């Protein structure tokens, strides 16, 4: 092991999260290596500085503003019949929207993939009532640079995996990157925050061309295998991905958001 590996252990050592053998190894190394001893001390200093940050006071009137924003939500939850009426209205709106799409026969493809109205309606109600165990993005082994844009580039991640220089990828090999095969994909999400809008942002982030969207799906143009891989990678961060289309040659992919279990 070199100093870089030991640097990774320092933080875990401070939190007493190291295995006994690694702990001994690090302690021996620290006795000999001045640079790592300094890093150890500096890491401890940073932790105590962060820990001493004073909490910010909650703004005055926070609760009042919250409850005034919640005005309608309050009535909705308190009155069961209103909830029921809302759910029925939602079902009807979705039913007629889908019926309209099917009647106009916009695309044959859509007609073959759309779920029966009843099923979609159930999803919609589930979403409204908030199935929230919240699937957040899975692993993100991103670079160690300060990234003010936030999200690491997919290609960079793949390259790092292939290089295998990353400490983490040595420890926990990332699952092989897969890709979208067909033209229709379902993503089962548990987070009600994830909407077609979220997918649009992801598409824009990854410079994928957006073709269209509706209340629970978006259509994206795919021009390469790489695009298919990016889509798969991004969607798998949101939830379980199911490739359900039959056409393997289409240059468009429809991504349908479904409520996860």
């Amino acid at each position, binding site marked *: 092991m070199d100093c870089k590996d030991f640097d990774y252990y320092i933080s875990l050592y401070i939190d007493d999260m190291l295995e006994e053998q690694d702990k001994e190894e690090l302690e021996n190394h620290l006795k000999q290596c001045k640079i790592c001893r300094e890093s150890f001390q500096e890491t401890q200093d940073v932790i105590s500085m962060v820990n001493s940050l004073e909490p910010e006071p909650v*703004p005055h009137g*926070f609760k009042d503003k*919250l409850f005034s924003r919640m005005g309608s939500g309050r009535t909705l939850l*308190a009155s069961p019949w209103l909830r029921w009426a809302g759910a029925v209205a939602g079902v009807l709106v979705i039913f007629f929207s889908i019926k309209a799409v099917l009647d106009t026969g916009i695309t044959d493809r859509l007609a073959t993939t759309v779920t029966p109205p009843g099923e979609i309606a159930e999803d919609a109600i589930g979403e409204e009532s908030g199935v929230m165990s919240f699937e957040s993005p899975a692993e*993100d082994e991103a670079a160690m640079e*300060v990234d003010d844009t936030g999200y690491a580039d997919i290609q960079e991640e793949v390259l790092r995996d292939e290089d295998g220089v990353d400490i983490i990828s040595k420890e*926990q090999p990332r699952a092989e990157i897969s890709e979208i095969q067909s033209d229709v994909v379902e993503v089962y999400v548990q987070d009600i925050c994830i909407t077609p809008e979220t997918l649009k942002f992801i598409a824009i982030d990854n410079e994928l061309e957006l073709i269209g969207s509706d209340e629970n799906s978006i259509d994206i143009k795919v021009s390469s295998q790489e695009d298919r891989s990016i889509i798969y990678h991004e969607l798998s961060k949101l939830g379980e991905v199911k490739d359900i289309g039959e056409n393997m040659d289409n240059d468009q992919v429809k991504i349908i958001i479904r409520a996860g279990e």
Partner: protein
Amino acid sequence: MNIESQLIKRSIDGDMDAFEELVLLYDKQIYNYCFRMTNNAEDAEDLAQEVFIKVYRSLGSFKSESKFSTWIYRIAHNTCIDNHRKKKFRLLSLSPREENDRQMNVPDREPLPEDQMVSREKYDLIKECIAELKPDYKSIIILRDIQNYTYQEIADILNIPLGTVKSNISRARALLRETLKSRLAGYDERRVK
């Protein structure tokens, strides 16, 4: 049944007084989480309120075998990440000039005695360094080093494997340490001059 569980149950039944008490139990933590994630009081207030609205709407689906604190932090984390995405998209449409103006917008401060200034500036530096981390590292530093959650609790909140928590904590701290070190070096040079 503990007080928190009772408050949850009563809130599900539509008791707004109970929900208000629940808000009071968590408002400081959730507001502070959103504040550190956004480094902006206005955004933090807006996001924290969004979190509580989502909590209220989704209480019915909260499973009592899970920890409420984990659940609410998870909602807060997802809300902040979603906001970050939207914001990043909006920033793309800003001109570079406007973006620079935003970054250069340093608030005016009252002059301070020398000692106080040193500690306050260092304090501000660490806040700036945290604010510059990417969201995944930022959240892990907030949860571990500010709010003192265990590795397992963080894994549950962020829904990532324990191994990823370990590596992200190590990387985030190392990055914070190095960024702070270089900033402090620049700061000390300025002080000498």
